[in-house]
């Protein structure tokens, strides 16, 4: 037997309350309709002596009733659901950011302090966590039933999902979007730990931070050769760029957010900065999404004040 699905996130009880309300309403409607069908079928079966005079074939009042009453109920349910939906879609500003890279067929997660995991994610109890996710290949979907959260993970863009775990323990993580042969075994564990224990766990496995690793990559991959301050090549300066507006050669403007920086590395010909020649080589196929995230972390770390993040 399956134990009832645990409610392990802050939003789960609210979502379950709506589910139960809809279940009760649906059950009431279904039972009423079945009861009416049963009663009519017995009472008006051929050969019964039931009175069949004055049988109506239309009634505007009745029709309007069962048009408008369901409509009103549906709008009520819609309103209830939208409140929850907005909470689901709006991560708290103080959430810890953890990066997730999906690929056929594994989940790779990186904590800001550099800790990396495969098919597992350790998170602190009672603290909001925001996952910033992307895919190396096809579309995947990050699904944790115990938290009632799911978000597709797409190649070429960052999607996000947040939760606050409210119960310590180990909860299954599934891939919910069909992604090829081993889709069904692209699973993992979410491990929820009390904050102190979590901090200890992070310490134990601490290595260089994501931003530090990004800085190393920035030099190793030759980015600093052109974008560095001593460079003779005419390339935009990236230090402190994150969150600022960039003017493009086609006259439009973009904000230098995660998506823009990602595309500038992987698809540089897409958006050319005004006043610069399109000489940036594409790093697509040369570096993976995890390295891109490290580079982004490095570029972000050069921005003096915590920038307003865009997704």
């Amino acid at each position: 037997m399956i134990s009832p699905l645990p409610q392990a996130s802050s939003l789960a009880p609210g979502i379950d309350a709506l589910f139960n309300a809809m279940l009760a309403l649906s059950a009431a409607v279904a039972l009423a309709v079945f009861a009416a069908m049963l009663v009519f079928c017995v009472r008006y079966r051929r050969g019964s002596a039931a009175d069949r005079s004055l049988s109506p074939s239309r009634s505007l009042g009745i029709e309007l009733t069962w048009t408008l009453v369901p409509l009103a109920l549906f709008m009520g349910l819609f309103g209830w659901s939208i409140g929850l939906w907005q909470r689901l879609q709006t991560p708290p500003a103080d959430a810890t950011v953890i990066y997730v890279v999906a690929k056929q067929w594994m989940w790779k997660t990186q904590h800001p302090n550099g800790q990396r995991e495969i098919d597992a994610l350790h998170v602190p109890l009672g603290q909001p966590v925001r996952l910033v996710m992307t895919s190396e290949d096809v579309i995947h979907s990050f699904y944790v039933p115990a938290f009632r959260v799911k978000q597709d993970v797409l190649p070429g863009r960052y999607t996000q999902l947040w939760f606050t775990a409210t119960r310590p323990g180990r909860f299954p993580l599934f891939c919910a979007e069909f992604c090829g042969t081993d889709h069904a075994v692209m699973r993992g564990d979410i491990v929820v730990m009390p904050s102190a224990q979590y901090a200890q766990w992070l310490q134990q496995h601490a290595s260089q931070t994501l931003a530090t690793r990004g800085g190393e990559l920035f030099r190793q991959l030759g980015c600093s050769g052109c974008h560095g301050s001593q460079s003779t090549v005419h390339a935009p300066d990236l230090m402190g760029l994150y969150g600022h507006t960039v003017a493009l050669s086609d006259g439009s403007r973009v904000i230098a957010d995660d998506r823009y920086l990602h595309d500038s590395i992987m698809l540089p010909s897409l958006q050319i900065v005004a006043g610069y020649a399109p000489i940036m080589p594409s790093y697509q196929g040369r570096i993976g999404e995890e390295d891109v995230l490290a580079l982004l972390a490095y570029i972000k770390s050069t921005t003096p004040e915590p920038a307003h993040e865009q997704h």
Partner: protein
Amino acid sequence: MSSTDPGIAAPSYLTAGEPGLAGWLLTHDHKRIGILYAVGITFFFLLGGIAAAMIRINLIEPQGALMSAETYNKAFTFHGVVMVWFFLIPSIPATLGNFLLPLMIGARDVAFPRLNLFSWYLYVGGGLFTIGALLLGGVDTGWTFYTPFSTLFSNSHVVLAVVGVFVVGFSSILTGLNFIVTVHTMRATGMHWFRLPLFVWAMYATSLVMVLATPVLAMTLSLIALERLLGVGIFDPALGGDPLLFQHFFWFYSHPAVYIMVLPAMGVVSELITCGVRRQIFGYRFMAWSMLAIAVIGFMVWGHHMFVAGQSMYAGIVFSILSFVVAVPSAIKVFNWVATLYKGTIDFHAPMLYALGFIGLFMLGGLTGLFLAATALDVNLTDTYFVVAHFHYIMVGGAVMAYLGGIHFWWPKITGRLYPEGPARFAAILMFFGFNLTFFPQYLLGYFGMPRRYHAYPEPFQWLNVLSSAGASILALAYVMPLCYLGWSLVRGRAAGPNPWRATGLEWTVPSPPPKENFALPPVVSEGPYRYRP
């Protein structure tokens, strides 16, 4: 309806015309074309059913009892592609619609008989591509062909399969076009719009969806082939494309496609209920308008397939409210069918049992659809077995029950023979129970978090999967039964006479099977449908 004197007995459509195979394969008669479709559809239903059986056997064991992951992925893809495009979409419109639409409006044939035959050949041609893809090793993308998996990563015969669906799509467009023109131009004298049987309204609404939605599918599938073969960057982000664009295109067709499947079912059930209850349908005009409302609003809800796909929060809100709105006309229909039972004189023959089963299953499918329309609940439920159960309640519990009910109801008209009532009632009841045992546990599986398209699953999900597979074996038996006794009745069934149900409707005024020309004299209609006497 005024009855038309059949006059001198003309030879039936089965015996008139050119003899032999050529008389069938080159026929322009809408009735013969309906039969041709029925043969093709039955064939594909069996193929898709075999794939379904393989899926259910595999899922008895958590590790997969029958197939490798790769084979399993190909099995559910084949099941989906075949059942959606080669069975459900053409099922009622192309068989019963083709056969009955001209008869019901008092016409000799559809507006474009040659085009009608051509649609059947397109259907067969599309089918050959799809079977070809299967024989060469299959396709593993799921029937949804999501990019960039389908364009860049799958090593299977994607192009062949999408060409098959592309071709069969044109068959659907041409059938829709044919029906629209037929209803507009070929109604008998006195058959004005609000005297049309609801089945004709259903065909009309369905045809609108076919003509307006299917071209988008054709375009989308061509783009997949372009990207896969020529590397044109449309959906693949590595080429500067957008995978979500594919989902918008795909669901812009595939959501309305659900209504291509279920609107005809609603039409059939309205005919079955009125005859079974021997009473006028309750709220005829609301029934007709609600079908058009479903067809129109159905075009504006596609984004509810994509709440977690990466579209904006506001898109989610808009598609959610529209999805709740589209449920209203469906609710109206359920209530009106039930109200039709009130003060009727009810006969529980097999078509009526199918119709009652349809109402129950369609209602459960519809109610669970509300859960999925609620964005906050959909986040948890989408891409799980909850969704699988939901759409099977609509498409199998709804559309297939109605299709089989319709086949039984019009069987005497189509073949001139009566089917045996006892086995037919037994099969209908067995189907209802088998269906619920198969698919109800899948709601629970989804609620507990089992994602769809899994060839293997965590052990706690096993008992519900075993229940579902047990139900599937009962369901399979219930589907095979009609094949047997209907086949038997073709040879041994008693002659039906023109109107064994004492039903109203112009199709019952002509002999069974109808003569090639349908009506000896053009009928004249002087009253609305469903003028039943107890």
